[in-house]
């Protein structure tokens, strides 16, 4: 009997030790996949991740723990598109945008419409006020890149956000929509951008207006008008950069 108990104890110990190794190894592999400087190490890490049993479940559970970032890394690295609905349901509560960025890395023709309409819905509904600034920035990026037109009023509202990072991303969205997708209904945002309190946003706006001008895209801002705005710029370094944007050859 004693030998039997001893045997079972050893078996149990081996099993639990194995379980620990298995549990930790997805974390190690995810970390390696994310930090590797060579494609070989990354490939090995991905192979290790693929060997894991019940990985999907482990990753979803880990999203609410301190292993969140490793789980997101694994999901993105392995392109686990079946987890898209799970991730989409968590976007609203994403604290720092990294879950949303992971979800955007899984976009394809099959899931694109559903995910992007989810993003648009969050940005144009009352929920907007409860979404973290970092998540708003993450939501806007693929919409601009792919060319999903948001209502002009919502975009103008976004440009009133107290975080300048959200306003900067809104400008980036307007730029993408105007240059890549020929959507020009967001000019009011550019008008507001020029008078932003922060010099970084004023410069970003001037850079966009200069691009529109150089592509002969109809704008209410002529080169002379933009030059006048630059000359009135109060921050000395910003004034120099502003004029450089407009000089022949652009920014050096």
């Amino acid at each position, binding site marked *: 009997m004693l030998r039997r108990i001893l045997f079972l104890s050893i078996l149990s110990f081996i099993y639990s030790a194995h379980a620990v190794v298995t549990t930790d190894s997805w974390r190690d592999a995810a970390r390696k996949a994310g*930090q590797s400087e060579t494609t070989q190490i990354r490939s090995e890490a991905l192979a290790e991740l693929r060997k894991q049993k019940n990985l999907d479940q482990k990753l979803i559970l880990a999203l609410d723990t301190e292993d969140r970032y490793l789980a997101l890394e694994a999901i993105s690295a392995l392109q686990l598109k079946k987890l898209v609905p799970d991730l989409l349901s968590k976007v609203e509560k994403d604290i720092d945008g*990294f879950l949303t960025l992971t979800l955007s*890395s899984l976009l394809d023709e099959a899931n694109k419409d559903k995910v992007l309409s989810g993003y648009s819905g969050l940005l144009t509904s009352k929920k907007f006020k409860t979404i973290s*600034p970092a998540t708003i920035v993450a939501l806007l990026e693929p919409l601009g890149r792919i060319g999903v037109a948001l209502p002009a009023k919502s975009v103008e509202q976004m440009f009133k956000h107290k975080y300048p990072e959200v306003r900067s991303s809104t400008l980036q969205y307007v730029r993408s929509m105007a240059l890549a997708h020929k959507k020009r209904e967001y000019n009011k945002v550019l008008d507001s951008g020029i008078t932003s*309190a*922060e*010099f970084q946003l004023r410069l970003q706006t001037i*850079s966009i207006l200069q691009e529109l001008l150089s592509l002969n895209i109809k704008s209410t801002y002529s080169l002379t008008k933009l030059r006048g705005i630059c000359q009135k710029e109060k921050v000395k370094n910003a004034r120099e*950069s502003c004029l450089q944007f407009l000089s022949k050859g652009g*920014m050096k």
Partner: protein
Amino acid sequence: MSAARLLLLACLIAIQAHSATTPASKECKAAYNDLFSKPVMNLWMVFGYKDIRPARFVGDRHERLAFVQKILAPCTKGNFACGFKRDGKNADLFTRKISSPDKKSAKKTVTVQLWVVSSSVGSDDQSNRDNPFQMWQTGYAKKSFDEAIANADVVFYNGHSRFGAGPDFAPPRLDDTGQVDSVYYQNQKLGFSDILETLGTRTEKKKKSGLKILGLFSCSSTQHFSNEIKKYASVGLISGKSLIFYSDALENSLVSLSSILQMRCSDGINKALGDGKGVDGMTIEGFAP
């Protein structure tokens, strides 16, 4: 528990969260008296251009914003990387007042100016390369970093090591396969030589001022940069021996900021950074024990 007691407890926690520890050793006390000797202490956190190959994604804007959300949040017990207010005219400037460590000093508080700068203008590397504003952002981040090395009290870099070429604020040079050109970077010092030059000049001209703590939150920063920096200047150097995962680098940056504002000595900072052990451990060298 009554509402009054709850309120009292909340106040006690808030007071504790805002009270820095008194530096333990004489050297440590002197180091913090020096660090906070001026009415304004300047601390820079510059994020390098963080492309994530093989994807086109660039992460530093997002990491910066996660960092900004944390420093703007109200303080909780034991965390000092918090409670900052943003400047109304400069999106990258945050301030907070803390008690002066020098009890003999006439000034009771010191203003901490924390500058937080990123390098990329968008999340897509290819788009950034086609965006004229990227060139400005790269130049702005690089200039910020170089000037901070010359003039600030504390500088943190959170970005790629670029195979030892050093802090890098631009979209990387790629090889024929679309990967970062490792051969090019291994043969160049780029951002790192600029640090050394600035530190060398600083050491010759004004030994008692300038940079006091340099944090390099990048992969294998100890091996890549530590020995050379120690030759040029005596700064408290935070670095790590391992490749570092982005969220660990971000967390270590916040922990280091919190430790400095809490006026921890090197043992305390090392403890908070995991004593250099494990996958995310880092250490501080050359700082008061």
